[in-house]
């Protein structure tokens, strides 16, 4: 699964630590998601979508697209 979390975060000028705090996860988790090493759970994906005012599909998309 790919995502544009890093782009969305950069647009808001948030650090990984700042985003992690807003989502109540560790910075390591944010880093792993941004580098496509870890796919978040559905509840966390919804939390991200809610934070950025986007739908999940606008943040996450399959690798072959």
């Amino acid at each position, binding site marked *: 699964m790919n995502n544009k979390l*890093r782009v969305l*975060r*950069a647009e808001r*000028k*948030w*650090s*990984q*630590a700042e985003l992690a705090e807003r989502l*109540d*996860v*560790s*910075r*390591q*988790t944010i*880093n*792993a998601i941004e580098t496509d*090493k*870890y796919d*978040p*759970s559905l509840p*966390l994906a919804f939390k991200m979508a809610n934070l950025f005012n986007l739908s999940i599909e606008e943040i996450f998309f399959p690798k072959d697209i």
Partner: protein
Amino acid sequence: MDYQNDKLEKKKPNRRSIILGLLIGLIAGIGFGFALDSLPIGIALGLSIGAALSTNKLRQKPPMKIARNDMIRILIGLALYMIGILGGITWSDAVSDRSMQIIAASLPILPGIFFVYAVGKAISNLDEMQRRIQTEALAIAFAGTFLVTQSYGLLGEVGIPQVSWVFVPLVMVFFWMVGKLWLMRKYQ
């Protein structure tokens, strides 16, 4: 502010990591003490390992942030467990009655259960990826311990000298730590 890529930076070992390393070393030392039949040598060996861990591996900024209350609970559990082990050894040596020796040797069970509960509680309070790392590390520890103990057990059948059961949790902790370090690197 660098928002492009925040790499996990290193920092000097803090007091908490040193204390934690020494406590891990003390527990390992008691195990070594049983195995080597010399508690002072075992504790010295364990403390050296703990000190090395705290000043080397734990120098990295801990990506797994364990809540303060969870850490306190773990440390209390660890301290009670150590007191239980040392008390159990001392008490069982002091009494001659068989049933009292069994009770004395069972002394660390209750604090041991509390320690396991404290670790479980701390893991359940981690975030989802950290929980995954811990779960996978425990699976590695289970598989590694299974392979080592079974292999050594079979080798014992052909004359390899047997070692104390106290080594089993040490092997498990070793594989847990190795697994955790590898997985933390993998997801970094």
